[in-house]
């Protein structure tokens, strides 16, 4: 009899104590989470954190005018995780457009409050987008083992896919030039009529290098990156101005250690093209950097060197360079902000996983 009383008392004590431990632990974590999610609407930069493919934990971080960072903005506002990785994004007329993979979707948010306005589904592996003729054009590569892809035209008013064109290569970067859609596809650049989706021009790149991304200079010329890897998987590639009148490239320049994705940006006056570099891709101490190419002098200059850079962008207001050490996608990224000369302004802020796209309004 006495034993059974002992057992009861002991059992209750154990259970109560364990619940107390877990309850206290939860309360502390909730507090941390709330602090990291204090909302702000006056931001200077929107950071798209690509996320880790296996966890689909892409997210949005913002930086306000005081330099405060808010992470997990999407989840905080919409109550659910984005549940995708963010491949790219763009801002158009008060909308933040996220082009996402795994789940494949285009999520359109109100840029003022980050609430979802609508979601477009049905495009397999969407990659990059541009606005032309009031519509969103998105590249898509459904199967990386096949030399084919698509450009979709999306009606942003009706929030639906209008039509698409099938290409005989894998399209990647996309830009609007003089009302036409310019797409990098394999070793070629194609110019597409936004109304009819007819291919109006084909510009051949330098050899087998893949046309990746585009940027415009101060004369509104379009420059394209052409990148690839040599037999030893060392990064190789360069940039070239596109000459649409001759359907050719002008001034192709091979750049040192030009990195695989071929993303480009410019300084505020658009006289220099900035790009990412990688050195020692096969060593444990992979080094990356941001370099610039002066269009007038045709010279290269390294601005920043560091570790783990993936994406980057330049603040058009002041020329500050935003990038991040993505820490191998295994955890959060470390945000890195430098001035135009490469002097560090911020190097110890933590943002989401795979911080790669830095958008400025």
């Amino acid at each position, binding site marked *: 009899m*006495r*034993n*059974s009383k*002992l*057992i009861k008392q*002991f*059992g209750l*004590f*154990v*259970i109560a*104590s*364990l619940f107390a*431990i*877990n309850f206290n*632990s*939860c309360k*502390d*974590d909730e507090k941390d*989470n709330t602090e*990291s*999610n204090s909302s702000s609407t006056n931001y200077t930069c929107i950071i798209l*954190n690509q*996320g*880790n493919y296996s*966890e*689909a*934990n892409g*997210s949005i971080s913002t930086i306000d005018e005081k330099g405060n960072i808010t992470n*997990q903005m999407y*989840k905080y506002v919409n109550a*659910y*995780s984005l*549940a995708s990785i963010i491949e790219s994004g763009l801002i158009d007329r008060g909308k933040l457009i996220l082009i996402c993979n*795994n*789940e*494949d979707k285009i999520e359109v948010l109100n840029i003022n409050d980050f609430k979802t306005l609508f979601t477009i589904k049905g495009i*397999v592996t969407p990659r990059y987008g541009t606005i032309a003729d009031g519509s969103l054009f998105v590249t898509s590569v*459904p199967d990386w083992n096949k030399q084919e892809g698509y450009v979709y035209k999306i009606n942003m008013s009706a929030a639906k896919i209008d039509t698409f064109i099938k290409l005989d290569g894998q399209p990647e970067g996309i830009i609007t030039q003089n009302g036409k859609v310019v797409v990098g596809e394999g070793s070629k650049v194609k110019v597409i009529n936004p109304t009819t989706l007819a291919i109006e021009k084909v510009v051949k790149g330098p050899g087998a290098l893949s046309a990746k991304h585009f940027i415009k200079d101060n004369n509104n010329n379009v420059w394209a990156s052409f990148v690839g*890897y040599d037999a030893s*998987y060392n990064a190789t590639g360069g940039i070239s101005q596109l000459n649409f009148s001759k359907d050719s490239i002008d001034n192709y320049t091979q750049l040192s250690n030009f*990195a*695989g994705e071929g993303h480009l940006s410019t300084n505020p006056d658009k006289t220099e093209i900035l790009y990412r570099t990688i050195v020692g*891709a*096969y*060593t*444990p101490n*992979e080094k990356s950097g941001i370099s610039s190419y002066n269009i007038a002098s045709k010279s290269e200059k390294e601005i920043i060197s560091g570790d*783990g850079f993936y994406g980057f962008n330049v603040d058009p207001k002041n020329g500050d360079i935003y990038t991040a050490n*993505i*820490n*191998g*996608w*295994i*955890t*959060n*990224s*470390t945000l890195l902000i430098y001035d135009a000369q490469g002097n560090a302004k911020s190097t110890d802020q*933590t943002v*989401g*996983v795979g911080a790669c796209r830095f958008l400025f309004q």
Partner: protein
Amino acid sequence: MQNRLLILLIALLGSFSLLHAQSEKDSTQETELEIVDVIGQKKARPSDFSGASSFSVSDTSIEMQRHKSIADFLAQHTPYPVRQNGNGMMTTLSLRGTSASHTQVIWNEINISPLTMGQTDYSILPIYFFDKIDVYPGGESAIFGGGTIGGAVTLSSDADKPTPAKFTLETGIGSFGKKSAGFKSHIGNKKVRNKTALFINQCDNDFTFTYRGEEMRQKNASYFNYGILNETDAHINRWNTLGGDVWFTKYDRDIQPMMQNNDDPSKYEDISDQSAKVVLRHEFDKKAWHLRNKMAWINDREKYQGDLIATHDFSVLSNLRHKIYGTRFHTPPLIEIGGDIHYIHPEVYAYKEGTEEWRGSIFLLSQIRPTKRLTLRGNVRKEFVTDMTIPLSFSFGAETPTVIGKHVRWTLGGNLARNTKTPTLNDRYWGEMGNKDLEAETAFNLEFKSEAKATFQRYNIVIATTLYRNDVDNWIMWMPRGIIWKPINVDKVLARGVEWGVSQEFPIAKTSHTLKCLFNHSFTEIQKGFANMRPFIGHQMPLLPRNTFAGTWTARFKHADISLSGHYTGERTSSDIFDILEGYFLLDLAAEYNIVIHSKRERKHTHTLTPSAQINNLLDKDYQNIPFRGMPGRNVSFNIKWDF
């Protein structure tokens, strides 16, 4: 500060419980405890040299829950986090803050962890084959072989147990189109014993889950599994035994897509895993000498989206154990020396043709009890791998069992170990991405344990607390290098924590009850030099909850058994420290009733019919074990078993 408070609280809990138990001693009829030496009373196993507080699940519990997945089983019987990539999908286990590949799975003394990936998928280990599952956390697990930085899980059969002819047929159905059938036989006499087990499982796995507030039905998650195990032992004379084991399993599965991709067929994938194992055994047992020899061939074949990943592992193992009589020690010292050699031939589409690897090891295990109240253990192992130098592994431990009064036996123990892990075949040979310059991972493990056992008439209580610290150097991780990912040695990871468990057995009226509670608090911290994990400094490693709890209540009546088990997985983060995944508590209920039917002709021949029912996730909790992998709500299964 919070960690210290928590550890203090747990220590107080342990002390309080212990004191509470002791306070009863004067008013009960006493059963005097003795420190007894059990070594040599059972079949020789490397675990005889372990002082770790292992988590052991015997055949009774396995019988009750044989229809569960081994993942659910481990979650309920250990305090360690089990990761499931969906219901019935790939499942891994992490011990004490280490990675899944740091825990090795040992079947009848043979390491069956995959050589390519390194991490064991527990969802393709059929619980139906085994009679005993033990989890040995900590560095001392090197006694089972290399790679046991986190610990080892041992799976064993009781084919060596004398038994009359016994046959079991069973079948079951359950929610989501689950169907299962199995057959087991134990046949034997004094000279020959044989165990055979066959199973077949099928499940549509089309449960419902909630995603963004909407209920969805799971697609592309069905599976079909079958397998056979045969174990035979023959005593060819007084001292020698020959045996052979054959294992074959086939698991064909859809890969459950992430919740957000449930309606997107472009994300549907499937996988097929086949495993064949053949082991020939010889044992010689004469007085103080015991020799075990084994030859094994293990062939694992995985087909993922048409690509083949397979290995052939040919091995020879030999262990010689000697009990040294005639010393002044309290019990005869026990030593065991042995070695093994493996030839590994991979068939992996991404490896260069002609890739092969030799591995081997030699070891010495020892245990001495100089006095009644002191046990000392020392183990050392040296591994050899083609074109690699593997550091020496060792462990040294001591235990001091003390009897307090007539009711309580209190054991204090400690262990210092260095353990190593050879890079996996994928780490070394995967196309351009493999890295032959990798070094072996090494870990220093330090642990202290306190275990109090108290007995008051038929009431037994065991309270165990273990504090541990595990420093891993050269941790191997796959990191992006340009357009490819490559395995590299990162610098240092430190895991530390406390495990606390209470187990009680007691009768009420004519029933017997077992109440077991296990709690684990672990903090796995990133140390200097591991630059890529810098944002995690001061935070727990991703997907590892700080707190886990497992509790099981089992009641045995005359012909009926009831089991209620719950486990809590605490909050954890994804790889993003700001992305917090909710903790969850699951409760399962199982019951079975034994109907004994006596043969009319001969009373000693009885048949037993055992209908059983299980309700899993009794509270219908909506939860995710891994981000965006749906898990089923409340579900049931019914089984009927016929023993004859």
